[in-house]
């Protein structure tokens, strides 16, 4: 019985927990509720994934209204995979969050913080799970609004500006998406994605459809932070509280990429969106530029959080490159990288969180000798960094490998060169940190000692996951392949 209700519970549980959080309001209680809720969503998403693997896509309707009229959830491999990423990251990071948040946010605001966290989780899970275009927009707004709150809580005063800019940009993006969905609705009279996919081909050759497509792609591109629409991202990630940086960096853009995939492949169909429309080449160019430019900028950053944020922009470039190949291999590379990038960025930002907790800074200059002062934390950072570069036996290598194979299959040599250069640039910016931390002068009077276990363990867990999924790829690669196949097959 309960098995059939899992899709609803996936979203309802965090949605229910959010107001409860507001009622409880005490830091510890709200934290505990957040962890428990995240863990519950993780359990549900795992169950959903196994269900989908066993018996194919799951349909769920709300309030007993049949699909095209009511809101329907539809879970196939792609979104089950994304649900798993989001809920797993939320669980790990929320465990980490208690001390980190306690150090960075006033006790009186922590209730709001966890409430916003749960709402954000609700929104992200909702985007991933829903099969309704308008519902997707609603969840997008829930997650965005709550993430503005989360970012604004950063210690640095600039967090407010960053959050404000994100608010403006995010709202524009959401509005575009709404306009796009509205145009599609005007054209077809339906909001259900499956229904849209059926009715769109008949009317695809109209200006309305194309305008809708343009608004949707640009709106989602803004949410993904695709170059050159990434400008909100570096500050938002850099000035947000440590836990939020880790959570959002690992999940928010991933979910937006998922939304893009959903619209491109399931709603419009790849023949329209990537062949009729010149989007594939656009994505290839913008993705390549993102990889090169953002990696180059990352090299010169003094603030490591900002450096990682730019590196995220570069990684988004890889994700879009994977889409631009319009091949099953490329698509599975993208989906795989969604997963692997969540692991590596999660590990890196958690390591930074530990460092911020201990030395209160993310500036490169303060990292002198940190390799000896916080050996485990720097170890996590190092593994995350290696994974980011794509060293074999790390998760990052696997996704780069598939990306390279996809580029070779297509014979796009320039893109191959871009990927290689991007990796080399990643070597440079990671090396800067490693050099300072391990070879720099050891400052005797600087604070030293590891972060508490409740922070260190989640970080180590993600680092280990980076290695585990660099060696045992059955789950990550297998599901990504199947998901890519499913996307190519249409809804």
């Amino acid at each position: 019985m309960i098995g059939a209700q899992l899709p609803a519970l996936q979203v309802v549980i965090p949605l229910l927990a959010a107001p409860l959080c507001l009622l409880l309001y005490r830091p510890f209680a709200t934290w505990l509720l957040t962890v428990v809720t995240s863990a519950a969503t993780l359990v549900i998403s795992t169950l959903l994934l196994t269900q989908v693997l066993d018996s194919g896509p799951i349909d769920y309707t709300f309030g007993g209204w049949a699909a095209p009229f009511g809101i329907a959830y539809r879970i196939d491999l792609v979104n089950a995979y994304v649900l798993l990423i989001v809920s797993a990251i939320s669980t790990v990071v929320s465990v980490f969050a208690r001390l980190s948040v306690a150090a960075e946010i006033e006790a009186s605001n922590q209730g709001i913080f966890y409430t916003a966290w749960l709402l954000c989780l609700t929104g992200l899970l909702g985007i991933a799970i829903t099969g309704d275009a308008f519902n997707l927009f609603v969840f997008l707004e829930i997650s965005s609004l709550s993430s503005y709150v989360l970012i604004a809580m950063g210690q640095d005063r600039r967090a407010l500006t960053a959050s404000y800019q994100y608010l403006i940009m995010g709202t524009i993006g959401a509005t575009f998406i709404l306009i796009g969905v509205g145009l599609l609705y005007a054209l077809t009279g339906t909001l259900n994605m499956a229904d849209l996919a059926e009715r769109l081909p008949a009317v695809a050759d109209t200006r309305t459809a194309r305008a809708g497509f343009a608004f949707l792609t640009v709106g989602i591109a803004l949410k993904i932070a695709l170059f050159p629409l990434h400008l909100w991202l570096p500050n938002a990630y850099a000035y947000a509280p440590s836990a939020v940086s880790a959570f959002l960096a690992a999940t928010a853009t991933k979910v937006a990429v998922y939304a893009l995939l959903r619209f491109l492949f399931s709603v419009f169909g790849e023949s329209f969106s990537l062949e009729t429309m010149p989007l594939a080449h656009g994505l290839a160019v913008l993705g390549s530029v993102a990889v090169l430019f953002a990696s180059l900028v990352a090299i010169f950053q003094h603030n490591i959080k900002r450096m990682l944020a730019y590196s995220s922009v570069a990684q988004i470039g890889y994700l879009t490159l994977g889409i631009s190949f319009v091949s099953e291999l490329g698509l599975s590379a993208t989906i795989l990288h969604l997963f692997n990038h969540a692991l590596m960025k999660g590990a890196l930002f958690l390591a930074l969180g530990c460092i911020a907790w201990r030395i209160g800074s993310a500036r490169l200059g303060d990292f002198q000798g940190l390799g000896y002062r916080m050996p485990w934390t720097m170890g996590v950072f190092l593994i995350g960094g290696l994974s980011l570069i794509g060293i074999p036996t790390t998760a990052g290598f696997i996704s780069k490998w598939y990306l390279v194979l996809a580029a070779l299959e297509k014979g796009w040599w320039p893109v191959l060169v871009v990927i290689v250069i991007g990796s080399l640039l990643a070597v440079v910016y990671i090396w800067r940190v490693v050099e300072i931390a391990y070879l720099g002068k050891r400052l005797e009077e600087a604070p030293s000692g590891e972060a508490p276990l409740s922070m260190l363990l989640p970080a180590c867990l993600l680092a280990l996951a980076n290695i585990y999924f660099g060696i045992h790829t059955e789950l990550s690669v297998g599901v990504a392949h199947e998901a890519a196949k499913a996307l190519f097959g249409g809804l």
Partner: protein
Amino acid sequence: MNDNPVLRIVAKIIIPMILIFGLYVQFHGDFGPGGGFQAGVIFATGFILYGLVFGTDALRSAIPAPILRIVIAGGLLLYVGVGVATLLMGSDFLAYNVLGSTPSGGQHLGIFLVELGVGVTVSAVMITVFLGFAGRNDP
């Protein structure tokens, strides 16, 4: 504006009316035009007017912040709670039919409660937003 007698008196007269109209829109919503969202905004207008005329401090003492917070959470909980209740009663999320003895009775009750939750939350949020902005310049 606190010392303008005309404003004070007019406000005292129309605030109850606004609140009653808000309640009307709320509870008539399932028969005619209306609904929780609109009702919540109208209901909140009454409080906001009170705050404008008598000062935000007066409004704050009328509705303390913790209460507002509880009301916001309570409304949302009511909404989600109905959904969870339908789940627990063995149907889909927000499938109201199971709430009453007859399907239409269940629909009735379900929509009533859900709209109430929406209205409560919206009005409390509106008041909070007003206080948030109006309170900026307070010492």
